[in-house]
C-alpha cells in the first residue's frame, strides 16, 4: 500500500472527496516552489502532483509550458526535483507525491536508477503523459514492481473498447482528463463529465479524479461532486506566475480545496 492508496482509503472512510494540486518543481526557483509545496497540505491539499520540467511539454498549455521554461532557465534538473521531495519529506511523511511529466528525462537517467532514486526520495506515484498502455514495458510495469503507483490518464477519446486496456496496469487512481485538449484549456461542465466518470467507475474500483480546466472553488466543488476528487494545476501555477506571494497563492489553494471538500 502506497501513501496514495492510504490517503484515498482514509478519505473514503471520512466520506470526503480528494483535492489534488499541481505545481511545477523549480518554478520560478527551488526555494519558492519548495515553500509553496510545503504549504500545500496545510491549504487542504490531499495529493501533490509535482511537475518535472521538460523542454517539450506536448500536452500542456501556455501556463504550464512557461512554468517549465522558468524552472529550466533557473537551472532545475531531475536531481534538484528529487532533492525538493527529500526536503519536503523531512517534515511530512504522509502527503502523497505524484511526479508528473514526460518520459525523456526519466529515460535519460535510466529507468531502474530513476525508480530507486524516486522511491528513496519519497515519491509515491508517476503520471507520465507520453507513455500510453502500448508502452507499458518501458516504465509502468517496472514502476509497479518498484512499489510506485503508475497513474494513467483516461480521456474522452478512450472509448469502451479501449478502457480495459487503459485500466489494466493503472494503480493509485485514475486521472480522467475531462476535455480533449491541453492543460489550462476551457473547463468541461460537471453534467457532461458525470456519465464519463460513471463509465470508468463501472470498470474499476480505483478512485477517479477529474482534471483539466478547473479554475474556481465552484467548479472544484461541482466536478469533485461527480467524481472522487479533482485536480487543479494551471490556475495555481498562473497565480504564482502573476507575482503573488506564496502565502497568497496558498490562500487561493485553500479556497479551491474547500470547494472540493464541500462536495
Amino acid at each position: 500500500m502506497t501513501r496514495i492508496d492510504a490517503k484515498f482509503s482514509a478519505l473514503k472512510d471520512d466520506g470526503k472527496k480528494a483535492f489534488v494540486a499541481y505545481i511545477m518543481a523549480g518554478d520560478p526557483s527551488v526555494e519558492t516552489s519548495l515553500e509553496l509545496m510545503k504549504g500545500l497540505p496545510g491549504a487542504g491539499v490531499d495529493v501533490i502532483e509535482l511537475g518535472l520540467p521538460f523542454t517539450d511539454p506536448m500536452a500542456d498549455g501556455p501556463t504550464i509550458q512557461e512554468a517549465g521554461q522558468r524552472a529550466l532557465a533557473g537551472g532545475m534538473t531531475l536531481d534538484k526535483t528529487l532533492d525538493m521531495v527529500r526536503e519536503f519529506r523531512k517534515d511530512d511523511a504522509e502527503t502523497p507525491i505524484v511526479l508528473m511529466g514526460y518520459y525523456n528525462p526519466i529515460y535519460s537517467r535510466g529507468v531502474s536508477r530513476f525508480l530507486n532514486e524516486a522511491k528513496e526520495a519519497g515519491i509515491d506515484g508517476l503520471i507520465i503523459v507520453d507513455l500510453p498502455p502500448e508502452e507499458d514495458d518501458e516504465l509502468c510495469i517496472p514502476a509497479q514492481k518498484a512499489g510506485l503507483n503508475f497513474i494513467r490518464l483516461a480521456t474522452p477519446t478512450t472509448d469502451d473498447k479501449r478502457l480495459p486496456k487503459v485500466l489494466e496496469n493503472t494503480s493509485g487512481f485514475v486521472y480522467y482528463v475531462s476535455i480533449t485538449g491541453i492543460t489550462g484549456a476551457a473547463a468541461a461542465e460537471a453534467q457532461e463529465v458525470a456519465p464519463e466518470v460513471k463509465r470508468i467507475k463501472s470498470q474499476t474500483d480505483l478512485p477517479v479524479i477529474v482534471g483539466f480546466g478547473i479554475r474556481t472553488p465552484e467548479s472544484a466543488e461541482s466536478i469533485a461532486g461527480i467524481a472522487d476528487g479533482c485536480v487543479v494545476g494551471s490556475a495555481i501555477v498562473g497565480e504564482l506566475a502573476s507575482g503573488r506571494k506564496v502565502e497568497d497563492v496558498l490562500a487561493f489553494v485553500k479556497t479551491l480545496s474547500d470547494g472540493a471538500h464541500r462536495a
Partner: protein
Amino acid sequence: MNELVNSFMTGPDEKGRFGDFGGRFVSETLMPLILELEEQYEHAKTDQSFWDEMDFLWKHYVGRPSPLYFAERLTERLGGAKVYMKRDELNHTGAHKINNVLGQIILARRMGKSRIIAETGAGQHGVATATVCAKFGLKCVVYMGAHDVERQQPNVFRMKLLGAEVVPVTSGRGTLKDAMNDALRDWVTNVRDTFYCIGTVAGPHPYPAMVRDFQSIIGKEVREQMHEAEGRLPDTIIAAIGGGSNAMGLFYPFLDDKEVAIIGVEAGGKGVNAKMEHCASLTGGRPGVLHGNRTYLLQDDDGQILEGFSISAGLDYPGIGPEHSWLHDVGRAQYVSITDKEALEAFQLCCETEGIIPALEPSHALAHVTKIAPDLPEDHIICMNMCGRGDKDIFTVAKALGRDIS
C-alpha cells in the same frame, strides 16, 4: 554489417518499432487516433484504387517520374566516380515533400477529415500541404516557428496565397520542434475533424513507416532509371537528412541490395563538437524519446532537448526518423555530417557546373559527394538525391556570402 538480419525491409514490427527505435509515445488522447490512422493506412496500402489515385496525381499534378540526371561536368570536375542526381527538385512545389503530402491527404479524405494541420520549418512541407489542401478544398493550418516565419517570408506568403492559415509558434524557442509541439497540441484539441499531416519520417507509429512508403517512389524510380541508364544498380546512394524523409525514400528500396552503399548526411552546422551548434542527431546525439518515438536526439545530460543549428532551416531538427537510428545501429547505412561552410561551397559548385540551383538541404548531400567522388574509380556510380530547389534559399545564401540583394 549485421549478417543475422535477412531483410532490412520488414520493419516496423507491430509495436511500431525498428529494433529499439520508434514506438508510440503519445498521450492517451491521441492514442485512439493514431490507432485509427494505422488501421486506415494498412487498409489503403493494400487497396489498388488508393495507389491508382496516387499514381495519377504523381504523374499529372506533381510531374513524376522525376528525371535521373547524369551530372557530367560535375563528374569531370571531381575526377572520379560518376555522379547522378535524382531530380526531385523538379516536382511541383520544388521538393520531395509533396510525394508524402499527397498520400496523407488522400488518406485524410478517405477518413472523412476536413481540416488538415501541419508543422513546417523551412516552409517546404507547409507549402506542399497548403498546395494539396487548396487542390482538394480542405482547410489547412500550418504551424511554423516564429523565428522561421521571419527568415522564410516568401514561403509564408506562398502558403497564404494558397489559402492556408499560418500560425507563428512562439512557445519554447519558436523553431521546428516547437511547431511540431503546437501541431500536436492542436490535434489533441481537435480530435474529431482534424488530420495531422507530418512532414517527415518522424512522429509516432505509423507515421515513420507511412511517410517512408510514400517517399519510396524516389528509390523505386531510381532503380528503374539506373537500370535504363547503366544497366545496373548504383554503387553508392547519398541523401541529406533533416527528419530523414527524402533519405528514407531513396534508401528504402535499396536496403536489401547489400552491394549498394548507403550514406545519410546530417547537418553539421558550425561543426559537430561539444558546443552543439549542429543538427547531427546520429553523430552528435544519443537515444531519447520525443514527438512520439524513440530515436537519436540532441539533448543535454538531464534529457532536456537542445535546439539544433544549421544554415538550412529544413535540416534544423534535433531528432531523426527512428528507422535511420536503427539503420545506423545495425550498420546498414553510414551517417556523416557536413558543415554549413561545406554545404555552401557545394551549393555554388552545383550552380556553376550543372546550371542547377540546389536547395541548401541537398547541398549537404552534394558536399559529401564532392568529398568521396575524387577517390573512387570512374566506373563507380553515385546517386545523390537532389530533393529540393534553391529558390527559397537565395536570400540566406546571399547573406552568408556577404552580398546584399534586398
